[in-house]
C-alpha cells in the first residue's frame, strides 16, 4: 500500500498544484487566452438581473471575435455600472481552438419596503422611525447599511424618551426584484420622564423661572412630563424667549446632555446658558413703536447681534420710513457696550420732511402700454388707501430693473431705463413726482432657428412649442424657456441625461440673429417593471388599474408622479412613496417601485356643536312668524369604512341630532367607475327629520343614486335619481287650511346638473365664472305621486377692477312647473308639496331676509310657505381694508321667492299685506377676515322694502283658530336690519 502511495505521490502533486493555481492571482496566465476566438459567452447564474437588451449592451465581448483583455475589463465595468451586480468574475476555458468565457456574477440588493413593528406610543410615528433609518426606497442596500439604519431608529426613540428600547431587524430578500425588505422590530420599553434640569453658566434669571419656561413640570397637577424630542427642543426655545423678554437678545441656551437614570426612569437634562448682555435697541430722533422696531431690526428674530443684522435693520427702518412718506429719511446706528453688562444700540433717525408721492409718469414706452408697466411696479402714488403713496429709492431702483427686464425678455437688448424724481411737484411743498424714462432701443429678432439632434422624439411637436422661432423677438430669456421646454419633453419621455446647447450668430439683416440649438439626447431609459409593495387589504387589480406605467414604457418621471397622485386620490393610502430602483445605475431598463401604506380603514368622528341663528325662538314658539334668534345644540357622529372589500370604495354613515334636526345619511362611494377616471358613482340613503323652516317640520326618507361625470377640468355633469318620501308635521299653520299640502308625499325625481367652475379660487374667487344648471323631472313614471319639472340655474362672475378691487355678481333663477296634477288642487302652486318648494333668504341667497324667510307667507298665520319660482341678484364690491387679511364688502341683493313664474315682478313696493310677489332690495356692508379655510364673514344688511304681513300670536290653539279670531292677528314685518356671521364668501 505504501509503495503505491510513493509511486503516485509525484503525480498527485501536479494536479494539486494545477488546481490551486486559480486561487493565486497569476494574471500573466490570462495572456494565454488573449487573441483566441471566443466560442461562447456564458453567465453564472444563468438568470441575470439585467434585461437581455442591457446585457447585450454591457458585454462588449462578442462571440466569434478574438478575446481581448481590454474587452473583458470593459464588460466588467459596464456590468458593474448597471448597478445590478455586487461582484463579477470572468473565467475562461479552452475549448478546441477557442475559448469559452463565463461571467460569474453576484447580484446587488436595493432598499425595498422599510417597516416598523412593535408597540410604540407616538411620538415617534412609524413613518418617522422608518425615515430615521435613512434607508431610501430603491437605493443600493449594503450589509453595512443595516447597523447605521438601526442606530438612526434607536437615536430617534431615545430622543423621544425611550431609553430602554430594544431593536431587532429582519431582512427579507426578494431575488426576483433584488429588493431587500427591512423590518425593525421595536420593543420600546417605558418612556422616560424629565426631572429637575442641571443649569450651568451665567443664568441671570431665577432657576424657578427657567424651569417654568421649559414646561417640563406640570403646572397644576404636579409631576414631570414624559420626554419627547419636540418638547425638549421647544423648552430651549421658550427659555430663549424668556431671556429675550428681558432684552437679552444674545442669550444662548444649549442642551449639553440628557442623562438617563435606569432605576427611576428619569432623565436629567443639562442646559448650558449664557444670558449675555441686556441689549437695549432704541430709536433716537424719531418716535418709533417697540413693535415697529421688532419688525424691522432682525436681532430679535435671529437671537444675535452682529454688524450685518444691524445694517439690515438700518435698511429696513429706512424703507419703512420712506414707505410712510419720509422719503429723505436717514438711519444710522451706534453700538456701544456699557460696563454694567448692558449693550446699547441706538438707531439715529433723521426723518426729514414728510412727502406725498403724488405722480408716477412713464415716458418713452411704445412697445408696452403704461398699464403693463404699472403691473410690474411696486412704487404706488398716493390713494385713499395709501395716503402718502409707496416710494423709496430701493423701490425705484427695483422698478427700473423690472421694466428693463420685461423689455429685455422681449428682444430689446439695448433698453435703458432711468428715472427722475421731482420734489415739490407743481409747486406743492412735499409733493413728489417720479418720471420713468424709457429708451427702448431696437428690438432684436430671430431670423433663423436651426435645431439639430432631435432623433428619437417627434421634432415637429417639439418645435411647435418653442418661443425663439423665426420672426419672434430674440432674448436669452426665451432661449432659456425653450431649453426648459425641450429638456422637459425629453425628461418626460425617458431621457434623463438629455443635454441642450445653443449658439447665436448675427443675422443677415440688422438687429437679427441666427440661432442654433444642439440637443444631445443621451440614452433613453425604459420601465422594466412596476413593483408595488405594501398592499395588505387592497386588491392588486385596483392598484394595477391606476398605474400609468407598464413594462417597456419610456421611464417618465411625470407619469410616475401622476401614478403616485392617482394612488393618493384613491383615498385609501396614507402614504405612497415612489422611486426608481438604483437611479444612478447605467441600466437602460429600470424597475419603478411604489411603496404604499394603507390608511386606517375605520374612521370615527364625533362632535358637539350649536347653532345660533334666526331659526325660530323655539319649536313651540308661534309668535315669531318672521323668525327670531334661536339656539340649537347639536351632536354629530360619523363612521366611515374606507377601502371596502379592498376595492377602494367607501361606505359612511353620518348622523346628526339637534333640537331642529335629526339626520342620518348612509352613503356608498365608488370612484372611477369601470376604470373611467371621470366617472364616480354614489348611492345614498337619507333620513332627515327637520324643523329648519319655521312653518313646518318635515320628515324625509330618501334614496338616491348619482353618477358624476367630469367632462373637463372646469366642467362636471351629475346624473341623479332620487326617490323620497316627505311628510310634514308640526305645521304651524292650520292643516285644515292646507290639507293637501300637509299630506305625506312620495317624489321620484330624475335630474341632471351641470357645473362649470372657472374661478381662480373656489373659496375666495377674484376672477372667473361659475355656472350651474339643475333640471329635474318628477314623474309618476319614477314612482312619484306628484308631477313637476324643476329647474334652477345660477350664473356668477368675478372681475378684477384694478389691482385691489373685485366686482362679484350672481344671478339665480329657479322655477317649478307642476303638470298633470290632481283636480283637488285649486292651483298649480298648491300642487307642489311644501318640502319641494323653493325657500330662500339668508346669508348666501338674499340678505334682506333671515334664513328661509323670503317669499309667500300663510295669509292667516304669517309663516313662510315657500314658492314655485325664485329670482335673486347679488352684487358685491370687495376691497381690502387693513393689510392683506381684512377686507370689506359693499353689497346689494335683490329678488325674492315668488309664488309662480308668472308672478315674478321687479316691482319694489308691496301692494298690500297679502302681496309677497315683489322684488325686495337690500344694501349692506360686510367685513371679511381671510383665513386658510376661507374668509370669516360678517354682513350687516339693510332691507329697503322689507315686507309686512298679518301674523298670529298666542298658543297653538290660538293659531289654529287664528283665522276665525281676527283679534289674534297682528301686523308683523320682517326687520329692516339683518345680521349674518359665517365662513366663506356669500357666493
Amino acid at each position: 500500500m505504501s509503495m503505491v502511495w510513493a509511486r503516485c505521490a509525484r503525480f498527485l502533486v501536479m494536479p494539486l498544484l494545477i488546481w490551486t493555481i486559480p486561487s493565486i492571482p497569476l494574471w500573466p496566465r490570462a495572456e494565454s487566452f488573449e487573441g483566441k476566438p471566443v466560442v461562447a459567452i456564458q453567465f453564472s447564474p444563468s438568470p441575470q438581473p439585467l434585461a437581455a437588451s442591457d446585457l447585450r449592451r454591457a458585454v462588449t465581448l462578442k462571440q466569434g471575435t478574438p478575446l481581448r483583455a481590454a474587452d473583458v475589463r470593459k464588460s466588467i465595468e459596464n456590468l458593474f455600472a448597471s448597478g445590478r451586480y455586487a461582484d463579477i468574475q470572468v473565467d475562461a476555458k479552452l475549448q478546441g481552438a477557442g475559448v469559452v468565457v463565463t461571467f460569474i456574477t453576484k447580484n446587488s440588493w436595493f432598499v425595498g419596503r422599510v417597516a416598523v413593528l412593535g408597540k410604540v406610543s407616538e411620538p415617534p410615528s412609524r413613518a418617522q422611525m422608518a425615515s430615521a433609518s435613512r434607508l431610501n426606497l430603491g437605493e443600493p442596500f449594503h450589509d453595512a447599511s443595516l447597523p447605521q439604519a438601526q442606530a438612526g431608529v434607536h437615536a430617534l426613540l431615545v430622543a423621544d424618551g425611550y431609553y430602554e428600547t430594544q431593536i431587532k431587524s429582519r431582512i427579507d430578500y426578494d431575488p426576483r426584484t433584488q429588493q431587500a425588505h427591512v423590518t425593525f422590530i421595536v420593543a420600546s420599553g417605558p418612556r422616560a420622564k424629565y426631572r429637575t434640569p442641571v443649569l450651568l453658566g451665567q443664568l441671570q434669571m431665577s432657576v424657578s423661572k427657567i424651569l417654568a419656561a421649559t414646561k417640563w413640570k406640570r403646572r397644576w397637577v404636579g409631576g414631570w412630563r414624559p420626554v419627547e424630542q419636540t418638547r425638549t427642543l421647544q423648552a430651549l426655545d421658550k427659555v430663549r424667549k424668556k431671556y429675550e423678554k428681558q432684552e437679552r437678545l444674545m442669550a444662548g441656551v444649549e442642551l449639553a446632555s440628557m442623562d438617563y437614570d435606569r432605576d427611576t426612569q428619569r432623565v436629567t437634562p443639562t442646559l448650558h446658558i449664557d444670558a449675555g448682555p441686556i441689549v437695549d435697541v432704541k430709536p433716537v430722533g424719531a418716535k418709533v413703536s417697540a413693535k415697529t422696531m421688532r419688525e424691522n431690526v432682525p436681532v430679535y428674530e435671529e437671537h444675535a447681534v452682529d454688524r450685518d443684522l444691524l445694517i439690515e435693520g438700518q435698511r429696513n427702518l429706512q424703507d419703512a420710513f420712506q414707505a410712510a412718506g419720509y422719503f429723505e429719511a436717514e438711519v444710522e446706528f451706534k453700538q456701544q457696550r456699557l460696563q454694567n453688562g448692558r449693550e446699547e444700540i441706538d438707531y439715529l433717525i433723521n426723518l426729514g420732511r414728510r412727502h406725498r408721492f403724488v405722480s408716477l409718469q412713464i415716458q418713452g414706452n411704445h412697445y408696452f402700454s403704461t398699464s403693463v408697466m404699472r403691473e410690474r411696479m411696486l412704487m404706488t402714488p398716493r390713494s385713499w388707501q395709501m395716503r402718502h403713496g409707496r416710494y423709496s429709492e430701493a423701490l425705484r431702483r427695483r422698478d427700473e430693473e423690472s421694466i428693463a427686464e420685461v423689455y429685455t425678455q422681449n428682444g430689446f437688448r439695448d433698453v435703458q431705463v432711468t428715472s427722475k424724481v421731482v420734489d415739490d411737484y407743481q409747486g406743492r411743498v412735499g409733493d413728489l413726482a417720479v418720471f420713468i424714462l424709457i429708451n427702448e432701443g431696437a428690438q432684436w429678432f430671430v431670423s433663423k432657428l436651426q435645431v439639430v439632434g432631435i432623433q428619437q422624439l417627434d421634432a415637429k411637436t417639439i418645435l411647435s412649442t418653442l418661443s425663439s422661432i423665426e420672426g419672434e423677438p430674440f432674448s436669452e430669456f426665451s432661449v432659456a424657456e425653450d431649453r426648459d421646454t425641450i429638456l422637459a419633453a425629453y425628461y418626460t419621455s425617458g431621457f434623463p441625461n438629455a443635454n441642450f446647447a445653443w449658439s447665436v450668430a448675427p443675422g443677415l439683416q440688422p438687429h437679427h440673429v441666427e440661432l442654433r440649438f444642439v440637443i444631445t439626447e443621451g440614452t433613453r431609459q425604459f420601465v422594466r417593471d412596476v413593483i408595488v409593495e405594501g398592499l395588505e387589504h387592497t386588491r392588486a387589480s385596483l392598484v394595477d388599474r391606476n398605474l400609468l406605467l407598464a413594462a417597456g414604457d419610456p421611464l417618465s418621471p411625470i407619469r410616475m408622479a401622476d401614478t403616485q397622485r392617482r394612488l393618493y386620490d384613491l383615498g385609501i393610502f396614507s402614504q405612497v412613496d415612489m422611486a426608481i430602483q438604483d437611479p444612478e445605475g447605467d441600466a437602460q431598463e429600470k424597475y419603478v417601485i411604489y411603496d404604499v401604506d394603507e390608511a386606517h380603514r375605520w374612521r370615527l368622528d364625533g362632535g358637539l356643536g350649536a347653532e345660533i341663528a334666526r331659526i325660530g325662538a323655539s319649536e313651540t314658539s308661534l309668535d315669531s312668524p318672521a323668525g327670531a334668534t334661536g339656539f340649537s345644540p347639536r351632536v354629530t357622529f360619523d363612521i366611515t369604512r374606507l377601502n371596502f372589500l379592498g376595492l377602494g370604495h367607501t361606505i359612511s354613515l353620518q348622523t346628526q341630532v339637534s333640537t331642529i334636526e335629526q339626520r342620518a345619511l348612509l352613503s356608498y362611494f365608488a370612484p372611477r367607475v369601470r376604470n373611467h377616471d371621470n366617472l364616480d358613482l354614489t348611492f345614498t340613503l337619507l333620513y332627515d327629520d327637520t324643523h329648519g323652516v319655521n312653518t313646518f317640520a318635515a320628515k324625509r326618507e330618501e334614496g338616491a343614486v348619482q353618477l358624476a361625470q367630469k367632462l373637463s377640468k372646469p366642467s362636471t355633469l351629475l346624473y341623479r335619481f332620487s326617490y323620497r318620501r316627505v311628510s310634514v308635521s308640526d305645521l304651524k299653520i292650520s292643516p285644515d287650511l292646507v290639507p293637501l299640502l300637509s299630506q305625506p308625499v312620495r317624489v321620484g325625481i330624475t335630474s341632471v346638473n351641470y357645473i362649470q367652475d372657472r374661478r381662480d379660487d373656489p373659496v375666495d374667487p377674484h376672477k372667473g365664472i361659475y355656472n350651474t344648471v339643475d333640471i329635474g323631472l318628477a314623474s309618476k313614471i319614477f314612482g312619484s305621486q306628484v308631477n313637476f319639472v324643476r329647474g334652477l340655474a345660477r350664473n356668477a362672475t368675478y372681475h378684477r377692477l384694478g389691482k385691489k378691487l373685485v366686482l362679484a355678481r350672481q344671478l339665480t333663477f329657479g322655477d317649478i312647473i307642476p303638470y298633470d296634477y290632481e283636480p283637488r288642487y285649486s292651483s298649480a302652486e298648491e300642487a307642489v308639496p311644501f318640502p319641494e318648494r323653493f325657500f330662500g333668504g339668508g346669508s348666501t341667497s338674499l340678505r334682506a331676509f333671515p334664513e328661509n324667510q323670503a317669499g309667500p307667507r300663510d295669509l292667516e298665520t304669517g309663516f313662510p310657505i315657500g314658492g314655485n319660482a325664485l329670482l335673486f341678484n347679488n352684487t358685491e364690491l370687495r376691497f381690502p381694508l387693513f393689510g392683506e387679511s381684512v377686507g370689506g364688502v359693499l353689497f346689494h341683493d335683490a329678488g325674492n321667492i315668488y309664488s309662480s313664474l308668472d308672478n315674478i315682478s321687479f316691482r319694489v313696493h308691496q301692494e298690500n299685506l297679502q302681496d309677497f310677489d315683489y322684488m325686495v332690495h337690500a344694501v349692506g356692508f360686510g367685513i371679511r377676515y381671510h383665513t386658510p379655510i376661507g374668509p370669516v364673514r360678517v354682513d350687516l344688511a339693510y332691507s329697503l322694502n322689507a315686507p309686512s304681513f298679518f301674523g298670529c300670536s298666542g298658543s297653538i290653539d290660538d293659531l289654529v283658530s287664528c283665522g276665525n279670531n281676527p283679534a289674534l292677528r297682528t301686523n308683523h314685518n320682517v326687520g329692516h336690519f339683518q345680521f349674518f356671521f359665517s365662513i366663506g364668501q356669500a357666493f
Partner: protein
Amino acid sequence: MIARFVILVLLMAASRAEIIDRIAVTVDNRVITASQITLEIRLTAFLDGNKLDFSLAARRNAANRLIEQMLIRREMEVGRYSAPSPGDVEPMLKAVQEQRFPHAGDYPQALAQYGITEEELKAHLLWQLTLLRFLDVRFRPGVEVTDAQIQSYYDKNRANLEAGAGGSRNPTLDDLRDQIRRILTEEGVDQQMDAWLAEARKRSRIEFHEEAFQ
C-alpha cells in the same frame, strides 16, 4: 498506465477554467479590475526601472493609486476640465526612450519584458500629463504664498538654500525669493491635493474585494 494518468491530469488541467479578470475595488459605481492593478504595477515598474513586484503590498499600493486616479478622473468629468490630446504624449515618450533606452532594440525588448504594449505606456503617460494639468488648474490658483511664509522658509532653510545656490555666495532673500515661492507653491498644491483626495475618499463608497488580493 502512468502515461495515461499523466495525460488525464494534463487534460483535466487544460479544461479547467481560469479567472482572467475580476473586480478588485469598487469606487461608487465604478470598478478597478485585477488586470488593471497588474497593468499599473507593470507600467510603474517599467518607468521606474524596477523589478516586477506582484506582492500583496504592491498590489494594494497600486490599487490605491488607481483609486486616486479614478477620483480625479471623475472630478475632471464633472468639472469639465480640459484634457491633453494624445499627441501631447509623444515628447514624453521620446524623452523616456532617449534617457532609458539609448540603444535601439532595448526599448521593445523592455516593453516585452514588462509585459506591456506601447499603447498602454502612452495611455499611462497621457494620464500623468492629465494629472499635472489638473493640479495646475484645480489647485495652483488657490495657493497663495505670503512674504511672511517666504521669510519663514528662508530663515529655517537658509543653510540648505545657500548650499544649493552654488556659485552665488551668501545669496540674499531677494535672490532666492522666486525659488522659495516655487517650492512653497508646490508644497501648497500637494497639501491641497492630499486634503482634497482625503475628502473625496470620504465622500465615496470604496470597497476592496479581498478575494482579488489573496
